[in-house]
């Protein structure tokens, strides 16, 4: 099979670390944390057990038109902000609408809209339920908002696979470009679930860190004292393009997409398979499908949510893939800074991976004080130069449901 070379030509993000991709990256390198105490009334009203989260650094309402804010769920608002930035960053590619596709992702969809509407129904009756409720809450809302904004007529696709969602959307984008369905794809994911109900539900399953008194150090992947993830929100977008299309228009190229892969555990609805064989296969496939070698992997952006079980399971899968060499590969766990963006997590981590390759520096993992002896990885705790020559990196994402998704990138060499 002949493979089409695919490159990343634009990036955009709005995250707990910043309102743009550049701000998010700069603050990540500076070792910042996006986690903070929640100011919402519902925190005290319901006495929710977790009182902090990694909220978006810049409220969407500060960026978008009033009409857009009224008609879009926050998950779509973040999506639109990130996609517009990525599109502008790519130089607003001239592409036939039919050859432009959106591959988006969300873990939950318009949960704010759904729950607001339910409150309205109970408090004020059905006549007051907004006519925009359904288009705002549907999980394909973000993809539709982006597609309409950019004029994409090649399809507005949405994948939903919990915390693996937006790595899967990037894998899908890669496949769709390989299949010749488009010349340019806007890929990524978004989430806006910092609401009393999801917070209570994640807390009920003991998934969240309970360090209410120290939000900034609560997300601590690989540390012996890690006690759960920190809920984040936001969006990230990548513009993926065939090399031919990118070069024809003289586009700046951040990195090449080596591949993407999706596998499933078929093991347990929330617990990762401790053997990690399916997760391992996703990593192997993402790298090897286009003929690249696992020996070239020089950086890993791990899923590493800071849960006791998840971090170990991923380590086991990494061991299966890389064996003894694993100890010499710099690993970054950027959820320590961003919190967990759920359906946006894979996209922001793919973006960070692309930036790491482009700038040849691995971002730090903050809050690692005492590394778990059962996870002897080479964890990057200060920005670390990745050196010269060709570099290959992978970004891992795993989600409830046993979803495993991996995206692989390398430095672009013409």
């Amino acid at each position, binding site marked *: 099979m002949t493979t089409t070379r695919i490159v990343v030509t634009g990036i955009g993000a709005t995250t707990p670390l910043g309102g743009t991709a550049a701000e998010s990256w700069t603050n990540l390198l500076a070792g910042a944390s996006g986690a903070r105490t929640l100011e919402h009334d519902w925190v005290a009203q319901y006495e929710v057990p977790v009182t902090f989260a990694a909220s978006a650094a810049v409220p969407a309402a500060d960026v978008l*038109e*009033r*009409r857009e804010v*009224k008609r879009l769920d926050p998950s779509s608002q973040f999506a639109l902000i990130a996609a517009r930035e990525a599109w502008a960053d790519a130089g607003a590619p001239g592409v036939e609408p039919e050859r432009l596709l959106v591959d988006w992702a969300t873990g939950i969809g318009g949960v704010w809209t759904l729950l607001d509407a339910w409150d309205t129904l109970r408090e004020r009756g059905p*006549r*007051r339920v*907004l*006519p*925009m409720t359904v*288009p705002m809450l549907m999980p394909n809302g973000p993809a539709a908002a982006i597609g309409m904004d950019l004029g994409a007529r090649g399809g507005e696709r949405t994948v939903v696979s919990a915390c693996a969602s937006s790595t899967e959307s990037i894998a899908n984008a890669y496949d769709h470009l390989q299949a010749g369905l488009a010349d340019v794809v806007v890929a990524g994911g978004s989430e806006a679930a910092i609401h009393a109900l999801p917070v209570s539900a994640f807390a009920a399953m003991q998934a969240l860190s309970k360090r209410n008194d120290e939000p900034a150090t609560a997300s601590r992947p690989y540390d012996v004292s890690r006690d759960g993830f920190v809920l984040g929100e936001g969006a990230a977008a990548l513009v993926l393009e065939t090399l031919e299309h990118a070069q024809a228009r003289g586009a700046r190229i951040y990195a090449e997409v080596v591949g993407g892969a999706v596998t499933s555990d078929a093991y347990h609805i929330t617990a990762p398979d401790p053997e990690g064989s399916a997760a391992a296969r996703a990593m192997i496939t993402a790298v090897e499908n286009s003929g690249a070698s696992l020996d070239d992997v020089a950086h890993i952006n791990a899923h590493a949510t800071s849960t006791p079980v998840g971090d170990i399971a991923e380590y086991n899968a990494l061991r299966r893939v890389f064996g003894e060499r694993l100890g010499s590969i710099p690993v970054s766990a950027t959820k320590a800074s961003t919190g967990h963006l759920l359906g946006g997590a894979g996209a922001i981590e793919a973006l960070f991976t692309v930036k790491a390759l482009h700038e040849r520096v691995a971002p730090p993992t903050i809050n690692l004080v005492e590394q778990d002896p059962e996870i002897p990885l080479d964890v990057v705790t200060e920005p670390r130069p990745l050196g010269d020559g060709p570099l290959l990196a992978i970004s891992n994402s795993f989600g409830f449901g046993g979803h495993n998704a991996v995206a692989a990138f390398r430095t672009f060499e013409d």
Partner: protein
Amino acid sequence: MALSNEEVLAGLAELITDETGIAADTVELDKSFTDDLDIDSISMMTIVVNAEEKFDVKIPDDEVKNLKTVNDAVTFIVKAQA
């Protein structure tokens, strides 16, 4: 106390501005909701429901299709208040 045509127009213009961002002074009696103000059916329903609350009137769903211009709406609301 029933409001005058002018008062209803001003109140309706506020609701339209709030929903669509259209400047209030462009909401004039002879303007068509769809052709001139570019208000789609979903925004129209939101404005109708908000108008029901603001002016304390009922605007039946079947009636909404007859409200083609701002004047149609103002006239209906003033009459419904009586």
